[in-house]
């Protein structure tokens, strides 16, 4: 019978090779980052309980009630809300228009690896496949790493104020995100059905249409709907940089210290987001 260890071994994570130092190192780095960040971000919890702060809180809360429910104000705000929805819809549509082709190009299994390209020559794969692939990936990366509001900003400078730059901004930024996720979905598709179709003599297009698309479609739809939910929130926010919608109204009201209007606007935003969540969930449930 094997020897029974009589006391806990010193290393708390035995039996996992290469694991012994990592957690400690990570903890140390994490702690150091937190301490440095604490100072850099000028975190001062005492501020939260200072007299001034509490007075402001009181002002804010008192100013919110009762919420502004005057007829003409509501009409104006509902129009803004509708505008927000429209921005989100158009923005997402453009994002799909941008993201889909770029996403296809950014899929390695479509451009230069995998069974579809077994018989293409090396040079052909490089020129026709890899180069566009790399370019598409780079473009998508730039599109999605620059936040929407920066894009919105720049588009406002380029085409003027209003909802249009907001639409473009969401289109570009979300196009980058959609493209990347589409390419991931396409690459993670189960390869076996594709091989089977290919072996049965299907053309490249046949393999894509019968093997790739049916597998990828539910996830693609689900993620696009999810992005639309995010787009609603983003559209609301983009107003802060002058791109129309609820955000612009909220900023105005805050700056003029009309907190009762802010409360109404937040309420409208709440309803909007909840509605979109609901619709999106219903569609996703049916599709998946």
């Amino acid at each position, binding site marked *: 019978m094997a020897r029974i260890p009589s006391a806990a071994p010193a290393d708390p994570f035995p039996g996992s090779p290469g694991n012994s130092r990592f957690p400690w190192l990570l903890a140390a780095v994490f702690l150091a980052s937190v301490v440095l960040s604490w100072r*850099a971000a*000028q975190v001062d919890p005492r501020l939260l309980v200072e007299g001034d*702060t509490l007075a402001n809180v009181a002002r804010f809360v008192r100013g919110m009630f009762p919420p502004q429910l005057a007829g003409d104000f509501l009409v104006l705000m509902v129009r803004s809300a*509708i505008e927000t929805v429209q921005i989100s819809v158009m923005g997402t549509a453009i994002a799909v228009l941008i993201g889909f082709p770029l996403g296809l190009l950014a899929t390695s299994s479509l451009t230069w690896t995998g069974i579809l390209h077994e018989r293409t020559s090396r040079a052909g794969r490089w020129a026709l496949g890899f180069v566009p692939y790399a370019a598409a990936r780079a473009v998508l990366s730039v599109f999605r790493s620059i936040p929407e509001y920066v894009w919105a900003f720049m588009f406002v400078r380029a085409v003027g104020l209003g909802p249009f730059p907001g639409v473009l901004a969401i289109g570009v930024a979300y196009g980058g995100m959609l493209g990347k996720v589409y390419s991931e979905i396409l690459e993670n598709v189960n390869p076996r059905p594709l091989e089977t179709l290919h072996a049965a003599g299907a053309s490249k297009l046949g393999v894509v249409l019968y093997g790739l698309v049916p597998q990828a479609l539910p996830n693609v739809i689900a993620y696009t709907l999810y992005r639309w939910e995010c787009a609603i929130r983003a559209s609301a926010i983009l107003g802060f940089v002058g791109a129309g919608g609820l955000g612009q109204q909220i900023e105005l009201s805050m700056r003029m210290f009309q907190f009762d209007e802010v409360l109404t606007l937040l309420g409208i935003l709440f309803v909007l987001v909840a509605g979109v969540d609901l619709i999106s969930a219903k569609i996703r449930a049916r599709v998946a």
Partner: protein
Amino acid sequence: MAPVATTARPGRAWTLWVGGGFVALLVWSADATRMDLASLGSGEALRQITLYVAKLFPPDLSRATLREAGLGAVETFAISLIGSLFAVMLALPLALLATRTLLYRGILFEARPPGLGVRAGRLALYGVGKGTLNLLRTIPEIVWALIFVFMVGLGPFPGVLALGVHTGGVLGKLFGEVLEDVDAAPLEALQATGASRFTILVYGVLPQALPQFVSYALYRWEVNIRAAAMMGFVGAGGLGQRIYVAISLFYERELMTLILAIYLIVTLVDALSAYLRARLV
């Protein structure tokens, strides 16, 4: 033998309705947002965009600008890190409150369902937890930033608070879902040994839930770094504040530098988050 009934599948009718509705929505939105695609594709808008882009290059790489960009980047990074940390600290207790299977439903309560009074109390707790989370996460980060700037003044701190509060709501909801979806079989076994609810939580629920928690928190950090940069627009420090200044004063080349800084830092955090998720989960 009776004919087998075909289960309801979203049939043609449904697809046509949704598809049609979708197209209508699109057309209506295009019209209303004054989608000037024509003008976009045509000369004027394109010219404007090209002119503007030309003004951005080459990026200003002078010492002073680089220093500002660097400071801004560090500040933004710090805001996102501490903000995410606060979010997790806020999300954990709220998530526990928003988990029905820990309060009054599910396998832990089968043998002794709580009495009516207790149940009502627990339901109320659940309501409060869920309600708070909904409130926190529906109000966009930037609005929270405005509110906190109003309350504690300008600087990066209100940005931290705003991120913490908003992301706390988002993570709280996600954590709650993870807690409810945990495998019930080990919990049943632990309960059968006479363990209390707290011990079952620690020994049975958390070991299953923690890896998912870490994954979600790291993923949210990627979102937060982008949001943190934006906080500055309303005075909450970081790169956002400097971008706002650059735009207002028409310092386009400096703006380019700052945009590059954002790109770098966002890519950095994305990479860190992916690496940590791979190692830890």
